[in-house]
Each structure stands twice: as structure tokens, then as C-alpha cells.
């Protein structure tokens, strides 16, 4: 067990940022904390990285309590805070050396590790540049290199890809995935595809509570509407309507006109049915024309929106 959090709460003057949160992270997992802004993700991470203590509850990292054994825990954690703060006046290698020494590495070990993380994060050619002059993507890599420099068991990354362009995001994600082979990673994000692509497990947070914790696939399954179909068919409207109404396997449908003589049908089957062969047979039998037949997979996004939508908004819908 890498992280064990139980009944963790944190309140800032009158405001409960984290309420009674419990979760576990096993060794070697990449876990994503997902939630809208202000959900308590950063606070949870700050508590785990021993920056602020919890108001109540306990948290252990590698079996060590984050409050009473903070120094030991800090040695085992590589933490990159939100917005990745760096010293803009230092050079890349110099900064990493400074951080490594601060984290208690010996001289020769520092040299070794700084070289290693520079290679690992693709910073070999930038090692002499001043951090303030680097692009945002490279700065992010410097932040990651800093988190990795003392070979921590657990890496905590708060919004690691925020503000990057798509190419930079891709390379940072790849870096994080590679990290998962040797380290345990806890990252936070409000960008869904990121979590979907990089994490083995997702914790969805809202207003300081954990609403769901599972693999991305299981969360999608839990939504239970995997067989949702889109079919574009050219057929007489009335005939099409009666056809759908009489089909026993179909739970629900909507029709809309598409370009040309086609109609776009969104079809929801009764649970467990695969409508695709049935529709194909139907079209052939009636001599209609079919130009699209596709299955809509519920992305994590829908699970997320469903879980994190504020109640007032839900009522309005």
C-alpha cells in the first residue's frame, strides 16, 4: 500500500475544503484525481505532501504518517505543485542540482541523478539555459525532473499539463506513463482525456468528497449504456418511425433530418442488446440505404459531468 487515506478532512476558516475522504493507492498504480476547480484536489495533495496538515483523519504514505513522520514522507515523495513554480533566475542544471542537494542527496549521487533526470525528461540540450527563458513545455519538464530527482517512491503531480499546447501535453503524458513503470503516480486534473489515457484508476471528487473511485472502463460500464447507436438511413419517414416503434429490442429512439434524404436516428437498445446486425438486416430487407452505423461509447466525460454537476444545475435540466 503506497497511500492510505482515511476520513481525511481539512477546513480553512469556516470552509471545508476536504470532507471525510478515504482512499487507497497501491504500489505501481497511476491514479488520477478528477474534479472541477475547488473540489479539494489540491488540498488533498498538499496534505499528502506534508505542506499543510489535515484537520482530522489520517494519511500515510508508504506506511509513514504524513503528520508525525513528515521528514521521512517528504524524502519519499516527489511533488509538483499547481502552476509548477520554479526559480526563473537559475539555470536548469543548477536548479536541479540545488533541489537534489536540498533533498539530501550526496555530491556524486546528485551529479548522477541530475544527469539521469535530464535525459529522462528530454532536457539534455537545455541544461545550461536559464529557466525563465524556457518555453512552458520545457518548464513543465524541469518541474517533473525536480519531482523525480531523488528517486521518490511516490510522485504527486498537481495539474501537470495545464496551460500546455497539444503537442506538449502529449509529450508530458507520455512521460507520466513511462513513470508509472517504476513509480506510483498520483495526478490531478480537470481534463478528462488526460486521465482516461494515463491512469489505471480514477477518483472523482466534488466539493471535498470522493464520488466515485474505479477504473475508467468500469466507470463507463457503470453508466450502463454502452450500446448506444447512431444510424443514418434514407427511407420514408413514416415507415421508419413505425419500424422503430415496433422493434422490441429498442428502448428509445430520436429522429432528425440529415443532409439529403437521410434521417439520423439515435437508438438506445434495451440492456444487453446489440442492435447493429438487426438494423443491417432490416435495411437490406426493406431496400433502404444506410450510410452510417456507429456505436457511441460513453466517454468518461459523461460519467464525470453526471457526477460533478452542481445540484442546482441538475434540477434546472
Amino acid at each position, binding site marked *: 500500500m503506497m497511500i492510505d487515506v482515511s476520513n481525511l478532512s481539512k477546513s480553512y*476558516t469556516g470552509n471545508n475544503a476536504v470532507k471525510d475522504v478515504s482512499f487507497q493507492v497501491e504500489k505501481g498504480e497511476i491514479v488520477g484525481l478528477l474534479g472541477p476547480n475547488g473540489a479539494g484536489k489540491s488540498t488533498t495533495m*498538499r496534505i499528502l*505532501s*506534508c*505542506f*499543510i*496538515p489535515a484537520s482530522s483523519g489520517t494519511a500515510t504514505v508508504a506506511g509513514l504518517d504524513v503528520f508525525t513522520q513528515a*521528514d*521521512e514522507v*517528504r*524524502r519519499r*515523495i516527489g*511533488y*509538483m*505543485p*499547481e*502552476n509548477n*513554480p*520554479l*526559480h*526563473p*533566475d*537559475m539555470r536548469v542544471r543548477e536548479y536541479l542540482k*540545488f*533541489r537534489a*542537494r*536540498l*533533498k*539530501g542527496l550526496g555530491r556524486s549521487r546528485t551529479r548522477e541523478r541530475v544527469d539521469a533526470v535530464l535525459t529522462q525528461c528530454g532536457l539534455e540540450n537545455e541544461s545550461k539555459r536559464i529557466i525563465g527563458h524556457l518555453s512552458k513545455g520545457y518548464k513543465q519538464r524541469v518541474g517533473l525532473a*525536480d519531482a523525480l530527482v531523488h528517486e521518490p517512491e511516490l510522485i504527486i503531480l498537481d495539474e501537470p499539463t495545464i496551460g500546455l499546447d497539444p503537442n506538449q501535453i502529449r509529450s508530458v503524458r507520455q512521460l507520466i506513463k513511462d513513470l508509472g513503470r517504476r513509480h506510483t503516480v498520483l495526478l490531478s486534473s480537470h481534463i478528462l482525456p488526460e486521465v482516461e489515457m494515463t491512469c489505471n484508476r480514477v477518483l472523482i471528487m466534488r466539493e471535498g468528497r470522493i464520488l466515485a473511485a474505479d477504473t475508467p472502463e468500469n466507470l463507463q460500464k457503470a453508466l450502463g449504456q454502452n450500446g448506444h447507436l447512431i444510424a443514418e438511413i434514407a427511407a420514408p419517414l413514416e415507415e421508419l418511425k413505425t419500424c422503430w416503434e415496433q422493434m422490441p429490442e429498442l428502448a428509445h429512439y430520436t429522429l432528425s433530418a440529415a443532409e439529403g434524404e437521410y434521417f439520423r436516428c439515435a437508438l438506445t437498445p434495451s440492456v444487453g442488446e446489440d442492435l447493429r446486425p438487426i438494423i443491417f438486416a432490416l435495411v437490406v430487407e426493406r431496400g433502404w440505404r444506410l450510410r452510417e452505423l456507429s456505436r457511441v461509447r460513453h466517454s468518461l466525460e459523461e460519467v464525470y459531468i453526471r457526477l460533478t454537476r452542481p445540484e442546482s444545475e441538475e434540477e434546472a435540466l
Partner: protein
Amino acid sequence: MQAYLTLTRRELGSFFYSWIGYVVIGGAMFGTGWSFVALLDRLQGEPTLMPLTEIFLDGCFWLIVLFSAPIITMRLFALEKFSGTFETLMTTPVSDWEVVLAKFTAALIFYMFMWLPLLGCITLLNYFARGANLLDPATLGSAYSGIFLIGCVYMSAGCLASALTRNQIVAAMISFAIGLGFFLAGFMAGPLDTQEGWAAQTLNCVSVVSQMKDFARGVVDSRSIIFCLTTCFFFLFLTGRVLESRRWR
């Protein structure tokens, strides 16, 4: 210990990464040079028994201390809090006290560095006076220990001011106000004329101006040493508590 030394070196280095360090040193050198010119002027006039350092003190000394202290110390914590690096710093295995002491040490070393030109001026004068023995080393040592102790007080006050806020300007203003308070204490005691009464006595004890005058004259008073060191420890202690306050606030 390793973290303390690493941090001190980084802090000291950061004075020279930015223009602030050079501006402060430039300003201090200008002030020192100006005072030196005034000193030479005075030496050409009537003969005097005052040690060189005491004459020097009448020049820009306090101006330099009052203005340089806030500028040297304002960045220490305020900038780190503002830019967020405070969080990365405090999540490494260093203690709050190591951080406070490292930053204070760096500021103090820089402050002492700032006073090197004075040593140059006096050496130069001694050289051209050709063995007239204008100043004995003991007096010079006493003057420099005075500069050091005053530096301890002003740098620690600056540390506290910087730890209180994330805005460097506010930090500079708080530290300037504290510094000015110590500076003016002696003058406020003046109108109270007699040495009787607790108010005048307290103000006289706190007056860094008269203490510095003693040091410059070659008088090393244990009361001053104790006063400066305890004040310094007090401010550093408060700074440490302010850093700690994020745990219980």
C-alpha cells in the same frame, strides 16, 4: 546541515542573479564614498581626537542601513510565497528553522559584503598617511562588530517582515518601519532629557544609534551585544513561528 548550506548558497547567489544586489551594493558604495569624502574634508580642517570610524558614522551610515535592510530582506520569503516556490521548498525534507536561518545568514553575509568598501577606504587612507597610525585595528574591529550586530537586528527584522506577507513592497515597508523605530528611539529619548523614568531609560536602551556610536568609538559594551543578539533571536523566533503558522491557521 547540508540543506542549510545549500539554501544559504542559493539565497546568497540570488542576490547576484538579479539587479537588486548590484543596486544595493552600488548605493552603499556611493554612500560610503560620500561619507569618506566628508571625512577627508573634516581631517583637513581642525585636528581631532575622534577615531576615524566615529567621524565616518556621522556621514551616510544610517541612511545606508535604513534603506538597504528592507531592500535586502524583502525578497526572502515574500517572493517565494508569491511565486509558489515556497511550496516546493517546504515539501523537501528541510525544517522551518533551517529555512529561516539560511535566509537570515545569506542576508547577513550580503550585508557584511556591502560594508567591504569601507574597509578599502580606511586601508587607502592609512596607506597615504604613511604610518601616521590613524586607526588602531582594535577600534576597527569594534566598529565592524557593531556593524555586524546592527546588521543582525535589521536583517532579522527584515526576515520577519518578509515572512508576514507575500508582497515584497509591503514587506519592505514593514521592515523599514521597524528599522526606523529602532533608529528614532534614541532621538525620542532626547526631549525626555533626564535619565530618570522608565520611558527615557527604555528608549535609551533600544537606541541603536548610541550603541553604534559606542562601537565606532571602540567601546564594546556587553549590554549592546546582548541587546542586539536577543532582539535578533526574538525576530528570528517570530519568523519561524510565522512559517509554522500555516500548520495551524
